[in-house]
């Protein structure tokens, strides 16, 4: 009969009146944030970074600016550059995470925050000092070693560079950004972590030279 479906609709809304709301009140309560969440506040480990600028090259928007000079602190290593400028213009960032994917040394991680709003666009460019001091809660996006360790950036504690580990799982057998990394990774091809460099490692004695793979938490 005419009108039955309308009554049905009324019943549906009435039923929903008694249900618990599905929305959450944001500042007080939050929905669960998943470990792979690609957030702001890039986590960058200077100790790992060689200044190769793969991230800058791979960024689709070109918002990463890197200026390097040959390292004076560790000239023996040769391949290590000293970073002078590392700016990420996160006002233009679209959080695709390709920079993280491109990083061959696992030095750059996506962050897990999303509340870095500023009043001016100028403040939205995060520079090298900001990156050094930032809270290191890396997202597990494209970092399976963190995922395997069950790291939760929101629940866990900040990780330092020795704890985040190296990527143990390679989708590509042959190359990654031009580097030859085949499994198992030969120990001589493992990137040498800068071992004794007191200028940016505070307790340099505690730093082991090569970091084991499953080192995270």
């Amino acid at each position: 009969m005419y009108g039955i479906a309308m009554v049905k609709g009324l019943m549906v809304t009435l039923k929903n009146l008694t249900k618990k709301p599905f929305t959450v009140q944001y500042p007080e309560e939050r929905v669960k944030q998943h470990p792979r969440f690609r957030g702001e506040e890039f986590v960058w480990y200077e100790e790992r970074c060689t200044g190769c600028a793969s991230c800058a090259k791979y960024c689709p928007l070109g918002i990463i600016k890197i200026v390097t000079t040959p390292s004076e602190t560790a000239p023996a290593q040769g391949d290590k550059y000293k970073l002078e400028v590392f700016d990420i213009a996160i006002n233009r960032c679209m959080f695709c995470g390709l920079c993280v994917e491109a990083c061959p040394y696992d030095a750059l991680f996506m962050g897990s925050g999303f509340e870095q709003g500023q009043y001016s666009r100028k403040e939205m460019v995060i520079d090298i000092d900001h990156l050094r001091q930032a809270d290191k809660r890396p997202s597990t996006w494209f970092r399976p070693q963190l995922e395997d360790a069950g790291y939760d950036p929101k629940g866990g504690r900040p990780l330092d560079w020795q704890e985040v580990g190296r990527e143990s799982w390679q989708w590509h057998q042959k190359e990654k950004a031009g580097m030859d990394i085949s499994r198992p990774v030969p120990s001589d091809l493992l990137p040498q972590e800068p071992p004794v460099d007191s200028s940016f490692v505070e307790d340099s004695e505690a730093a082991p030279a090569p970091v084991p793979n499953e080192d995270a938490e």
Partner: protein
Amino acid sequence: MNCVLGPDNILYDTLLFRVIYDGVGNVLPCWLSYVVAGIAMMMILVNGVLLGAGLFSWVERRLIGRFHNRIGPNRWGPFGSLQPLADLVKLLVKEDLTPRGADRIVFTIVPVAMLAPVVLVMAVVPFAKDTALANLNVGVLYILAVTSITSIAIFMAGWASDNRYAMFGASRGVAVLISYEVPVVMSLLGVVLVAGSMSLNDIISAQTIPFLLVQPLAFFVFFAGTSAELNRTPFDLAEAESEIIAGYHIEYSGVKFALIQAAEFGAVLTSSAVMVTLFLSGWSGPASNYLGWAWFLMKIGVLAFIFSWIRATFPRLRIDQLLAFAWKFLLPLSIINLFATALEVYFLRDGAGNLDTSDLWIMAGINFGVAFACLLVFGTLIKEKVRPAGPVTGATLTPGEAD
């Protein structure tokens, strides 16, 4: 100098008015205390309606929030109940824009013209025993006359705004109001016939059982018609948010917008009050001598809830369908109702022309039967229109002929 209000005065029945009049009359001259008491009553009514509108805006937003399975405004005050105040402050400090091409005078009059009828209607509605501001013996007629002013206000708003969306809204609003006025009047005639009077007090006292039971068709028609006149879903064409954005009040901002909103929400309450009075036996209920206002408010609350509920559920009709609904569905229904009621009253009344409770029950039985029969008949008639089936034979497009 004790002033005495003569029993022939139309305000004589208003207990509150008499109390104020007598009290003030001890110190002021009679004519002045008459004015003072009138202003005091007016203040109570106006502020009552405005406060009620504010409160209802919060209640409705909360309710619709819950119907949507979300929370609704809850940031300020307990359960967000101070939200209307926050809205008001926000609207008061907003710039009061008038479009360049607007007719400034008419544009400015509109909010008042919208709000005035809403408040005026409350003048004749008794919200407890002996509390109607004016116990008019043509109360029903007065209500119908006053509520029609809204259509003029809507048209003024649409015309003065110099905006084509507003024009759409205004023309739709006027078309709707004019069409729905007819079935609404016809449906009220049934009530008047049964009650034997146009005075709202008499109608309430005639409702030994609520007229909702005696006049189900009239209630349905009146409810639908009122929804249309209030611009509420499924008849909210005049301010169809998704089509013409806000219709006639698209250009209003600041205080004027606040007044228009208050008028809209207040209109829901006053219409509910009228419906409560006419169909739900007004303030009467157990212990109505003392708790009449509570019954009255409770019944208004129920009706307002139903308004919100329907608003949260249904889509909107199209203008031609809306008018067809009025002329082809509601009008016949109200005429049938009027005819049936007239016959029943003719055969059931006693020598003095009164109907007692058992007569009302008999009428309720017959009228429910009539209502169901009507719905069935009209339902089958409309069913074909609701589901036109069959394959489509559209125009074919051949090369070269296109456009």
